[in-house]
């Protein structure tokens, strides 16, 4: 990795190294006119990129990173005002005429958007859309353009490109659509590609493929890439340089290694330490960045990050003076008043941000024990004391859930069935956390809803403390509802927008204890306090809260009935990284205090690792592997588990650089028509004939079992190539 891939911005006064930057953005500001006044989405950003390099712009929602990207190609709506300079290949783009901009767009700078489904026009064939682009920029015949389109599709790894070129977007899977977008972006040999969260909408195994295609091609074609993302893990493996944005400003910029290993801004340091990782010490609690994302309508004075910064001080001017961008090392800049002090004190290096006096050490020990011995954690709650300890809290036996699928036949009279969940068995002990991971369509959320009896099962049994849930529900639905609760994925959809927070939290007390709102006021206040909110919030409506706050309200609602089990359906996946850690920590703390069991559904293996005692991996409706956390993360046997782990990016540039990946082919098949035999065989590098005909059973011992004809024998080594 070359050191000076980016020229420090002009304000730093250092002379630019050899090689003219391809794109240079300086002092960029973007503001939008709104009914509530002007909103400054971007407030001074400088960066540059050299030909053939990868620059990552990292930030959370509202940081202004996408607006920055759009402003380069001048794709912002007319309500936006852009100031500063954007120099591309020596040309001032902000001053460029519309006709010139049209040549630049697609021809010299191409763009890839987040959601490939909506970014492509559904009424035209995919090929047509690529041909259209080629013909704008190249004076070639339609037949030649078509040939080029097929070549490009082939290049990005779309099978049967000559057939695919004539298909519509809805006939493509998510990963293929994004490949097609990449093909389109590369079709006119641009010098620069701007990729705006190109893999956020994709599953993790597909994300790995798509990123590989993008970076590999960009390198071969010597195309520079501006990669916009919120995922530091992705950045670590791919980027040469990083610009970190917060509240519309650049807070830090430099080479990947500098930013990760010699962090110079408290925000970057906070992001890094709040990130759950696949490697590293799992018992060390995540360190969240406190507070809430800033309001851009009324941004904080001085340093935008000061309200959330541990080290903000009046004396240093954090509250009143906007920090200048200062170069710390050659080409490594940060905008922090106290950066020098903090770096010197070693406070910004990873691991140092943790609070040593944290009272989670006891918990960690308990968890380590639980994980190691696979015996239930002996947390006693009043309810459990009376229950027979031999009976597990929750037992699923051969649970199956079928849905009616699409109509079949000309008349559509009959319908296919889709097995969303089939033959799933597991046990969950009191106070234990079972993490369930899998990609979209694997049936993990459906399973959660079946356990909750929000969906009736179509086969098998679910036993709660030994009693069949189906019977339980018939007899005393309300009792059952007070024992099992759920926290939902989308904090924006999981609260009724027309009920105040207080009303929503009082409802469980009304249902289960017959208390009206006035009578349950004290309990509601206590619940809000427990999840870290203020009792005064009871009168507010959900839309007045941020995502993280709403998710806390959702947790409080589940706690109200003092359940024995909480089903958590991707509780943090919709939250910003800096907020996630706080919620994960809250969940851990609550479990420690109250001893309930968690059924934790997630697609993110690193989050699951931080909260689970045991982990189940699902693929197309089945559990393919289940075991203790140690077993799964250290010696997973199923190839799919290995592939999943391998696909997770790790925010560590040194590791990512040497790391080899298992790249699975294709997308997750449709559950409507799953492959015969082992469902995973179509994407498995170990598949043989037997996998095609015989469906593997779960085998292994009581604590660790897996369903594979050819299980992997070697222990997990993060960064290793295909295991055998």
């Amino acid at each position, binding site marked *: 990795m070359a050191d000076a891939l980016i020229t420090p911005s002009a304000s730093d006064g250092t002379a630019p190294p050899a090689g003219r930057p391809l794109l240079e953005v300086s002092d960029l500001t973007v503001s939008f006119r709104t009914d509530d006044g002007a*909103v400054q*989405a971007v407030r001074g950003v400088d960066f540059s990129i050299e030909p053939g390099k990868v620059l990552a712009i990292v930030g959370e929602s509202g940081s202004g990173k996408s607006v920055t990207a759009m402003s380069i190609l001048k794709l912002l*709506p*007319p309500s936006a005002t852009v100031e500063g300079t954007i120099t591309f290949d020596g040309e001032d783009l902000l001053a460029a005429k519309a006709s010139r901009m049209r040549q630049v767009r697609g021809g010299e700078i191409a763009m890839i958007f987040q959601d490939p489904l909506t970014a492509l026009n559904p009424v035209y064939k995919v090929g047509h859309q690529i041909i259209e682009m080629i013909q704008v920029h190249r004076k070639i015949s339609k037949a030649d353009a078509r040939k080029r389109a097929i070549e490009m599709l082939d290049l990005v790894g779309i099978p049967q490109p000559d057939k695919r070129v004539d298909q519509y977007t809805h006939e493509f899977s998510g990963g293929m659509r994004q490949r097609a977008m990449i093909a389109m972006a590369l079709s006119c040999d641009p010098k620069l590609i701007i990729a705006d969260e190109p893999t956020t909408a994709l599953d993790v195994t597909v994300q790995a493929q798509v990123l590989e295609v993008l970076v590999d091609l960009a390198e071969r074609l010597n195309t520079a890439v501006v990669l916009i993302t919120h995922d530091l893990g992705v950045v670590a493996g791919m980027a040469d340089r990083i610009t970190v944005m917060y509240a519309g400003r650049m807070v830090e910029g430099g080479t990947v290694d500098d930013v990760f290993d010699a962090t110079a801004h408290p925000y970057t340091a906070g992001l890094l330490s709040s990130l759950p990782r696949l490697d590293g010490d799992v018992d060390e609690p995540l360190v969240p960045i406190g507070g809430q994302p800033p309001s851009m309508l009324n941004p904080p004075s001085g340093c935008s990050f000061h309200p*959330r910064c541990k080290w903000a001080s009046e004396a240093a001017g954090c509250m009143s003076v906007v920090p200048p961008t200062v170069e710390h090392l050659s080409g490594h800049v940060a905008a922090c008043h106290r950066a020098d002090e903090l770096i010197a004190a070693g406070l910004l290096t990873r691991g140092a941000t943790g609070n040593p006096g944290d009272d989670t050490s006891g918990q960690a020990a308990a968890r380590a024990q639980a994980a190691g011995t696979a015996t239930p954690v002996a947390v006693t709650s009043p309810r459990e004391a009376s229950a027979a300890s031999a009976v597990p809290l929750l037992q699923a036996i051969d649970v199956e859930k079928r849905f009616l699928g699409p109509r079949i036949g000309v008349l559509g009279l009959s319908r296919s069935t889709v097995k969303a969940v089939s033959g799933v068995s597991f046990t969950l002990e009191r106070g234990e956390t079972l993490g369930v991971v899998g990609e979209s369509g694997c049936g993990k959320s459906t399973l959660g809803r079946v356990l909750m009896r929000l969906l009736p099962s179509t086969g098998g049994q679910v036993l709660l403390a030994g009693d069949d849930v189906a019977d339980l529900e018939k007899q005393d639905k309300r009792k059952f509802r007070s024992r099992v609760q759920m926290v939902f994925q989308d904090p924006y959809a999981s609260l*009724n927008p027309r009920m105040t927070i207080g009303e929503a939290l009082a409802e469980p007390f009304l249902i289960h204890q017959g208390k009206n709102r006035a009578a349950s006021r004290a309990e509601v206040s206590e619940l809000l306090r427990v999840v870290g909110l203020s009792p005064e919030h009871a009168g507010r409506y959900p839309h007045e809260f941020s995502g993280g706050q709403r998710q806390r309200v959702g947790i409080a609602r589940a706690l109200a009935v003092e359940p024995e089990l909480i089903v958590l359906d991707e509780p943090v996946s919709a939250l910003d990284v800096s907020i996630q850690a706080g919620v994960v920590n809250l969940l851990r703390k609550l479990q420690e205090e109250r001893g309930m069991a968690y059924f934790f559904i997630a697609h993110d293996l690193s989050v699951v690792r931080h909260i689970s005692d045991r982990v189940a991996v699902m693929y197309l409706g089945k559990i393919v592997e289940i075991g203790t956390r140690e077993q799964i993360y250290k010696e997973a046997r199923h190839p799919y588990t290995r592939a999943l782990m391998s696909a997770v990016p790790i925010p560590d540039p040194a590791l990512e650089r040497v790391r080899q990946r298992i790249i699975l082919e294709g997308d997750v098949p449709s559950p409507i028509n799953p492959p015969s035999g082992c469902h995973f065989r179509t994407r498995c590098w170990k598949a043989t004939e037997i996998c095609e005909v015989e469906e593997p059973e779960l085998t292994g011992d009581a604590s660790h079992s897996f369903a594979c004809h050819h299980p992997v024998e070697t222990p997990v080594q993060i960064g290793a190539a295909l295991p055998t």
Partner: protein
Amino acid sequence: MDLTTPPGHPGEPITTGAQELVNVGGHATTSEGEQGVAELAGLEGGLGGDGAGGEPVDLDASLYDVGPSRSLAADAWRRFRRNRLAMFGLLLVAFLLLVAIVGPFVVKDPLSQRGLSRERPTNQHWFGTDRLGRDVFARVVYGVRLSLFIGFVATAVETLIGIVVGAIAGWFRGWSDTILMRFVDILLGIPYFVLALVMVTIIGKGLAAVIITLAITAWLQTARTVRAGFLQVRELEYVEAAKAIGVPTKRIIIRHVLPNVFQPVIVLVAVGIGSAILAEAALSFLGVGISDPTPSLGLMVAQAQTEVTTSFYLLFFPAMGIVITVLGFLLVGDGLRDALDVKDI
């Protein structure tokens, strides 16, 4: 910026366009338009605790910060108030209500035939008199009153039917849904006005018949809208959350689903009153609605048609009565549609 942002560019002031640009997260289901700006600006975080003084900042305290309290209804009203056309419509409706309530105490007896036949507008008879010497001003006031009465009652009845049918179909789905919605499809398969004529043929003429006809033909749209709302809302996580807590079905429907499918219904009510008034006028005009001597605006227009060349005012005033009434409700409906961010109606 100037040249690259052509006139046709999606210029909905920032609320949606820019929101997408700035946002990463999957905030899919926020329905209020204003939300866009809030998300754009990262506003949800509220004030973010600016200007906090002391050296050790209590970080978790910022969890306590939320924006200024405002309900969704207040937001909608704020948007409605900013819409000048809608406010004009509201003014018209208020004025007509005033006319309908106060008017009868002020004007002459609309059935009295004591004026001269076809007298042009004078100080005595502001809108002139008709062929029988009845005061047109009084008849228009009573006509507006009747129009409003029919509009309100017919719309109230149809909305009720529509909500009940739509709620049953949308909540229970399955057979009841299939049967009810097929029935709605079948009735919608007959052109609206023809269906109204058929109903009038069967029920007969008169006030009650007109109201029943209008209600029976108009509930179909409401039912469809409510059903669509139910089908959508019942799948949302907060309804699942209510089920998970054990909230009884009745309470889920009333407290969790109904309030959240109401916005389009409110728009339908406003527009529906306007269309009911228009339809009544048309039926009466054709001679199958309200009959003489009851002062219906449509009927008055019909009666004026033979005299329109000589006494234009006989046509003009009742016609203006209809136009203003209907316009008022349509403008209010439009304003509500924008303020509540309702689509597809």
